[in-house]
């Protein structure tokens, strides 16, 4: 299985009749079981790119294919989303939220619930299956959102800053747990993040985007095997990658990055 973005561009029309190029000629390929993080300056089109990969947004030109089949619209069986704001339905209990996609897909209730229970157990929330979202912490709500996506057994998991709304300690703990779980299940993941540490810690490969118009400015491979432990943060490789990313994303270098792509 591979996800391929080929000559992908997204252009928006503005109110003043001008055109705004959000993504420009994006090309990459993601292999089965690969964990790819996308990082870049604010407004560079990271989320736009993720939405294109999941069929939530139709590109102006170019194509996204999964197993050589073009993605023409959202299909959680092929690509399931985890968003930053969790977005659990407040009127549904945890289990009902977890099986939401299965319900939309017409899966019989008993079968869907069994799958939901399995995924809630995986994210450590079996005891909260009857709780309402308002009764859960932010970290717990994000676990439910991950369980909801995992219930679909998607070909690829698309995570849009999934830990962005959490405090530092929770995001680190949840990040380690989820990265381990996804590695063990050999899930294919594309994760947008603002965090340099997250981008390095979980990824096989980091796609660095330039400022608008968003382009893939650099691909960085992280060679250490996954899942990684806390010790990896203290390694020279981590420090070197962090330094490289920091330099690449430094405000003064962002425009140079875009120009280097032009050349």
């Amino acid at each position, binding site marked *: 299985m591979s996800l391929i973005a080929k000559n992908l561009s997204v252009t928006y029309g503005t109110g003043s009749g001008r055109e705004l190029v959000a993504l420009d000629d994006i090309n990459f390929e993601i292999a089965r079981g690969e964990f790819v993080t996308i990082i870049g300056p604010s407004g560079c089109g990271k989320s736009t790119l993720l939405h294109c990969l999941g069929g939530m947004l139709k590109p102006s030109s170019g194509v996204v294919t999964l197993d050589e089949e073009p993605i023409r619209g959202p299909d959680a069986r092929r690509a*399931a989303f985890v968003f930053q704001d969790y*977005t659990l339905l407040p009127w*549904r209990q945890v289990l009902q939220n977890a099986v*939401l*996609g299965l*319900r*939309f897909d017409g899966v019989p209730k008993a079968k869907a619930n069994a799958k939901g229970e399995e995924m809630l157990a995986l994210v450590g929330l079996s005891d909260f299956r009857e709780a309402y979202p*308002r009764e859960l912490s932010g970290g717990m709500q994000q676990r439910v959102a991950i369980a909801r996506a995992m219930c679909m057994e998607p070909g690829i998991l698309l995570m849009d800053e999934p830990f962005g709304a959490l405090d530092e300690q929770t995001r680190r703990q949840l990040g380690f747990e989820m990265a381990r779980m996804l590695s063990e299940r050999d899930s294919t993941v594309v994760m947008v993040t603002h965090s340099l540490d997250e981008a390095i810690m979980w990824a096989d490969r980091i796609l660095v985007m330039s400022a608008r118009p968003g382009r893939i400015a650099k691909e960085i491979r992280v060679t250490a095997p996954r899942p990684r432990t806390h010790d990896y943060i203290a390694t020279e490789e981590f420090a070197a990658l962090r330094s490289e990313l920091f330099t690449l994303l430094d405000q003064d270098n962002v425009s140079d990055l875009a120009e280097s792509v032009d050349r």
Partner: protein
Amino acid sequence: MTTTDQSPARPDDRGQPVVASTPGIVRRWHSLTLRSQSRLVLVLVLVLVALVWEIASRTGLLNAQFVSRPTAIVASIPELLASETVRAAVIATVAGVLVAAVYGTVIGIVLGYVMGFFAIIRAAFFGPALFLLSVPKSIFIPIFLVFFGLNRETAIFYGAFSGFIYVIVNVVAGFDLIREQDLRIAKAFGAKIHHRILDIVFPATLPGVFAGIWYGVKGGLQGILIFEFFVSVGGLGALITQYSNELRTDRVFALTLGMAIFAIALGAIWTAIERRLAKWRPQN
């Protein structure tokens, strides 16, 4: 041998002993919750008003024929309860309110959802609905009389009319509670149109519907009573007007009190139903 607590009371910031100087009643007052305190204050004020009213009426400070007095009002209740005329009026009004509330809420909910779903209809009719909301509904009574005649059904139609505008406005406002991210999730997970309506739109708009139904019932009650006050079509409103003209002030107050208790009971029942149906919402 008995022992007594010899430890000195702890001084406050100014060095004054606190516990020893605090009377028991004050300590008991502070141990009550704010809700209990507020209820106690309410009861005390009502008792005080009744007492002043009673004394003023008995001493001739107030004309008892016009303002009656609390003991006379209480005394009139058994004879009102025994009266066939009063019972018939209560049944007519309560039944009218319930039928008007059903008409008003059903029509209001349907029209509210139509306005919510279709932007063009909302743009065309929400403004006039808001205008109707701000206009005193009683100015339409003559129109209802011309259209439907002088009978109980007209009172019910007018009651439904008084309520359904509130229902429409609240249901439409409920559409503004639909969160963009919920629709995004529905799209991302392949929700079909009926899923979006049943799983997102209906639950999200429910607070508006709940508020609308309550205002619809209240509007129905007000509409029926106002119609009965103005037009001789029977019911409690007409009876209150009759007793008022006969200077039976005790009966006027007793019936008004009865209607107020009916409205409060309806409100309490509705709150309980709403709490049960929307237990996912924060209770505070």
